[in-house]
């Protein structure tokens, strides 16, 4: 009021300047009158949310269950003889081969993945998880890392790769044979392309040198390893050293103590163009990795995949349960509402 009055006068600007009114702005923000959406929990909105949620969850859940049901998976427990042998760590040098027979009752169609599973292996132990050097795996020199005590040997030779993760790498070799009409056909397996593309091409790099063995010159293999890192895959130069797929996959530390890691994929050639046909198969395993030390177990798993992942039906069931619960709640609320409507004295009409 004051301002408007003075503005009409001759000396207005000076006046307004000299005596700015302390009156606060009448803006919506300052007066806390911003237009606001006030979520009102009326019966209509409440019921619609519950029923909609319920319907959505139920449908998603059913889809998930159906798709998970189409997954074929077979788990094979590994040989016990060798495991007894490996119990004694003095025998680590002794080779142990074992074969496991199993039968596929139905065809496994599509891409079939071969996993090795470990139980009770706490890969997620805090000090284990950090015991690696990403810089080293990128082919750089390592100055500082969390690898201790698997950094160097007592004589100062650095370990390549360093750290507990690398040291404890899974080192069994598994081959699959198909007993087809009493003839034994080795199932062709793909050992590359199993890891993440980014891991293989960005995150892991071999040190720069004209050949791999000279690149790793001056380093030594980790204590548990039987061969140095540059001999991990002697057949394929692009799958050797740090960029070996098995190594990369092992280095991706699992979230749980019981886990599986992708080992091989079935190459869809000839007999196996559609996947694994039903029949008798044999695993030939060179047993190296000791599991009894930590009271663990090893498996070999063959599995197909769908869009929703593996054979785990949990997500689908959870969706169904959640949807059912939401729908049920909706019905209960409707019932209560109907019952109480007569008694209502509140303002909702």
């Amino acid at each position, binding site marked *: 009021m004051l301002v408007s009055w003075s503005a009409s006068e001759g000396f207005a600007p000076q006046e307004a300047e000299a005596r700015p009114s302390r009156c606060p702005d009448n803006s919506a923000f300052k007066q806390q009158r911003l237009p*606001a959406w006030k979520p009102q929990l009326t019966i209509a909105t*409440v019921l619609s949310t519950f029923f909609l949620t319920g319907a959505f969850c139920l449908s998603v859940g059913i889809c998930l269950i159906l798709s998970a049901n189409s997954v074929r998976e077979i788990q094979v427990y590994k040989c016990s003889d060798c495991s007894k042998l490996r119990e004694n760590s003095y025998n680590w040098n002794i080779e142990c081969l074992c074969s496991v027979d199993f039968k596929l009752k139905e065809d496994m169609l599509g891409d079939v993945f071969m996993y090795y599973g470990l139980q009770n292996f706490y890969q997620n*132990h805090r000090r284990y998880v*950090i015991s690696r050097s*990403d810089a080293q795996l990128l082919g750089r020199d390592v100055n500082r890392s969390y690898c201790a005590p698997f950094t160097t040997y007592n004589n100062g030779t650095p370990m390549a790769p360093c750290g507990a993760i690398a040291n404890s790498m899974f080192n069994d070799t598994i081959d699959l044979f198909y007993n087809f009409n009493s003839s034994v056909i080795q199932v062709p397996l793909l050992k590359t392309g199993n890891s993440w593309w980014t891991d293989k091409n*960005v995150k892991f790099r071999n040190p720069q040198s004209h050949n791999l063995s000279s690149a790793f010159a001056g380093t030594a293999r980790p204590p548990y390893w039987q061969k140095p890192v540059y001999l991990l895959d002697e057949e394929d130069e692009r799958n050797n050293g740090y960029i070996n797929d098995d190594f990369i996959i092992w280095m991706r530390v699992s979230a749980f103590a019981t886990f*599986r890691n992708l080992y091989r994929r079935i190459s869809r050639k000839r007999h196996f163009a559609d996947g694994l046909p039903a029949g008798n198969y044999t695993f030939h395993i060179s047993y190296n990795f000791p599991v009894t030390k930590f*009271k663990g177990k090893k498996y070999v798993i063959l599995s197909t995949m769908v869009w929703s992942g593996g054979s785990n039906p*949990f997500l689908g069931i959870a969706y169904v349960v959640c949807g059912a*619960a939401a729908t049920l709640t909706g019905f209960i609320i409707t019932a209560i509402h109907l019952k109480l409507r007569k008694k209502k004295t509140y303002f909702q009409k």
Partner: protein
Amino acid sequence: MADPIRWARYRWQRLISTEGREVSSSSNSSSKRYQSSKTASKHRIVIPCLGHFKEEYEKVSKLYMNNKIRTTKYTLLNFIPRNLFEQFHRVANLYFLFLVVLNWVPLVEAFQKEITMLPLVVVLTIIAVKDGLEDYSKYKLDKQINNLLTKVYSRKEKKYIDECWKNVSVGDFIRLSRNEIIPADMVLLYSSDLDGICYIETASLDGETNLKQRQVVRGYSEQVSEIDPEKFSSRIECESPNNDLSRFRGFVEHSNKDRVGLSKENLLLRGCTVRNTEAVVGIVVYAGHETKAMLNNSGPHYKRSKLERKVNSDILWCVLLLILMCLTGAVGHGIWLSRYSEIPFFNIPGPDGKLIPPALAGFNMFWTMIILLQVLIPISLYVSIEIVKLGQIYLIQNDIDFYHEKTDSTIQCRSLNIAEDLGQIQYIFSDKTGTLTENKMVFRRCSIAGQEYCHEENAKRLESYQEMDSEDEDSADAQYASLNHMSKRRGHNCRAVNESLKKKSLDQLSGSYPVAGRENSASDVPHAGHVAFSSRIETDVVPDTQLLEKFSQISSHSYQQSEDAVSKLSLETTYIIDFFLALAICNTVVVSVPNQPRQKMRHSSLGRMPIKSLEEIRQMFQRLSVRRLSSSPLPSIKESSSESPNSFVSKLSIFKMKLASPALDGAAQRAAEPHNPDSPENPQLSEELDMVNVAAGSEHHSAGSSVKGSSPLSKLCYEAESPDEAALVHAARAYKCVLQSRTPDQVTVDFTGLGSLTFQLLHILPFDSVRKRMSVVVRHPVSNKVVVYTKGADSVMMDLLGTASEVGTKNSEMEQKKIKERTQKHLDDYARRGLRTLCIAKKVMSNEEYTEWLNHHFLAETSIDNREELLLESAIRLETKLTLLGATGIEDRLQDGVPDTIQALRKAGIKIWMLTGDKRETAVNIAYACKLLEPDDKIFTLKSQSRDVCALVMNKILEGIQKNTSAKKTKSQKLGNVSASPTTQAPAFSAEKCRAVVCCQATPLQKSVLVRLVRNKLKAMTLAIGDGANDVSMIQVADTGVGILGQEGMQAVMASDFAISQFRHLRKLLLVHGHWCYTRLTNMVLYFFYKNVAYVNLLFWYQFFCGFSGTSMTDYWILILFNLLFTSVPPIVYGVLDKDVSAEILMQIPQLYVMSQKSVAYLPSTFWITLLDAFYQSLVCFFVPYFTYYGSDIDIFSFGNPINTAALFIILLHLLIECKSVTWIHAVVIVGSILFYFVFTLAFGATCKTHNPPSNPYWIMERHMTDPVFYLVCLLTTCVALLPRYLLRVLQGTLFPSPVMRAKHLDKLIPEEQREAIKRWKDDCVVNCRMEFQVTSGSSSSATGAVSEEESIASVLPTSKTPLQFCSRGGLVEEVSLSDIQDESGNTNSLSSERTVFLNLSKETNSDSYGSSNCCAKVSQRTSEEGKSAISLAGLNTEQV
């Protein structure tokens, strides 16, 4: 020599202490220590830094501080170390520092070493920036002040030159002109005023706008010319610097060893403004930080809100929870380890190749877990709370409803951290005058000689003011102000232009904080702002027609019948004339002219009158001492002694003037004794007639002159010390009985009918609360008789009236009696109407009587031992056998909206106590007027002299209440005496059952004691509101102090946490902002707890699957930033902007306040439910992904990513569910947070190959973005996690809506429906409130069903602890009698120390105030000295209603 050290230590203590209460107390005590030690050690010697003293000066003054001030805490150099030092005083910060250090221990480290520091560094930086900015603004202000200019005498140039304030040092001579600010404490050596007086305005120091007089040092006042610093050869010795504003002791020692004493009358204080005096010269004695003003600056005070205390206790719970979780981890890890007989692959051996034993590993794990789970203790909570509070304060300050156009002021939040306490107030302690009322005394009615003049027109005028809604008045004020401002701008020299700048810094000068509202109005609006008690509503009085007619008779009588008019003039007319003369004279009002504000008006009646009239009335006025000031430079002693025949008397009277000044300072406390001298009453009648006759004769001559003089007259400004005085003078002016000028020894009144009359002022017997009256003794110019005019409270005045007139006829005696009866009737009527009543009486003394009294009085004044008692006795002896002239009724109008506000606050379950210094009748009347009491309330009065009696009465009253409750419908009220001693708590306990309490005649100390009592004994949240210096102690004691920007100055505002301009603003402040702030902050705090617990538990659950090894499945950076960046802004916005119920509804339904008052939103159960919900949500959030990915080849960070993302969604959507209103800001912030999270994780995942050695989230988010399972998992997790909370809210909202929910629903209705719904609400409320109560406290207060609304609210109050609390409308009206204070002072040392604190505060106001509140201060002071007589006095006006 030890002084500088002590000084340094003192300053250090002041700066170090950060806790609020401790600040003031410690600084007080330390300053006292400092002060006492200083005084004990050495006095300060001040020597002018000139001439022959040069060497000695340098020796002595080296140690004194110069005038440069520095109020900043930090310098550029010490900022970082010092700020860190202070910040680590906070336990929370120390805790986080401990965590950081812990993380550097290799055995237990959980994160990368540097990363743990991040949150702490961020928090410290934010706080440091805030502190730095605050300090910088202080620094700028300091600089501004230090560079102000003043005139300092320079020896080189032999004249006064401009110098910056900071260069002024002790011993400098400073010359100040009118309206300049005093740069340092200095002793006044010269004033251009002829009486050696200098007027200063202390508004910036204590906020009082009336002028204070300061006197030139004795011996220097006789000098005619200005003092020459070169010739000044004396030395000044005075006290060492101290913070006592009301004391200054010292002496000037001349070169001939003569000593002249110095008192506070000679001291000009830094920060005050010179007014009314052309030029003054002084010598600086204290400079800079040693000035009294700076020493009084205790700085801002911090309070800790109730909520914050509760938050702290809940944080302790969190700590407990954390320890529990860590213990689980430690034990689990130990057990897990012990399962393995040999080293497994995944367990890394120590350097020596061996494993540490499980027990030790478990112990280490404990610490690791503490680091890992540290987020459970929300470090960001403290920062967020501070930010939210700042935001809330910002919004409160910008509320347009708090804007008061008239004063151009809005609310000031001086305390930043107790806004939410506004929502929890249970007791309001309110001052009356100026708080509930406008403190604008308006003359309403008067009764003269038994005839009432009800001033109908005036009443109409007042009504019209109300209707105009003060708009017109405002614009007029503003126009006037602006014009004035303009003229000032043009008229003054360049110095005046600087003035507004100076004004702004005034607060800083006086060591206080800049306060909006006053400075500008003070500098720009001399009329409206400067002169207190002079708004139009107060100054304009429309005369009563009836009375005006009688006035015209005076004039016409005197015109037409010249000589024989005497007989025709009725008795009544003389009464009227005397009545108005008394109104005009019997006061201490200072007159000034507005366009030269603060210019003392010295009126020469001779100069104004035409010669002709002068000639004619010369013989009538022959013996009147007329002071020709313009011509005579001689001191008044000589003049009056030469002109007055009664020279002895005159001399005495002048002597008295000098002597009486200390008595005016409030030190004069007199014991009242029933005094009935039997000297005969004077025959005043004949004299009166004589006077009128003479005056009538001169009338027609002076008529012309008075017309001429009327235009300047109308512009006279009256500066009164109390509003009542101003009102009376203005009333007299309305009847053309104009007070023209006042000097220490004469008063000039321009009376239309009689011309200008100059009274020789013989004595002023100032007001004190013991006598309850004041008197002036004047020599009547016409009759040359000594006349005493007295005005005072009717209770005392009626007893002093002359009963049997010996000289008067029987007729007149009868007449007198009749007048007395009728006046008493009118007085009672006035009191019923809530008017402040005053009786006016007079007494004519013969010269002989006067001389006799004067002798006694002279003796009293000269006696040393018990001078005050004698003076009191002397005054009592004078004020006897008075003739009642009439009575006045002054209305102190209630402020706008006070009754509504009080009613609303009461409905909100707040108990209101009114504490006033007024007498009981007035207090009760006002209480009725403002609806504090209702007509059908029952009032109990409690008053007693001793504690035992008091207790007895209390018990009776309690019984009474009990009876009333059984009758249910009876409403009870009590008027009680709070025996505020710590041992008797009965009053307080019974008081909690009463609806309203009125405490009368409460001294400031008693007020604060009461507040403290309620606060401590009842554990209630208290709010004290007041406007004057007498409320300061109460405001400081209460949990929340509210000051009103009233007419009495800034002291209350300075002490307050919130300053508002009108009482009615309290309604919105409490009901709306209090509610909002509280609910917002509690919800935010609860949300923070929820958020942290929910998030941290994700990590905790993972421990069960990783061998309790302390692994986190989320990348550390994201883990830390999750709280710091991704989820920090939404809760802050939520805490600042959430609005559960609209302001309109909150205002209309005060009952909603109970929700926040009872902490419904933050009960212990709410806290635990929130934690439970957090646990549930974290369980869902962890285990849905866990089971989904169980047994798959998922890696650890890929597993963490959906969990983290789902947690983000859950936490943000949870906020959305909790939000009561979602504005675009909420939407932007929430969507922004989600986007930010995704952008960050994507960018981080794309770039981070090795930057983050141990954990490596490379490309994980990118992969998940193309994986449908990721979305499905996040969706399901979010749904399942939020479903229960949503269901809970749904059930609450539809089936069992809380009042707040229902109120929220009202917002949606169209206005008509809304109105109806609100009406229905009130019927409904009973049920709901009770339900709420049962929910809240669980105690089944068996309040019965069919009770009224108020009763139900009362039952909600926590006071229901004993069986008798049913009485809901039970109220207490308490009357504090003087005895209590005495009890108390005898009892506790702590209280008596308080007393001294208070006395320091009040002395300034005591010095010359008339206000009743201040009298209380005097009494309390006095009681400590001699309690007995005070008790008997206290008994005078306490009675059962």
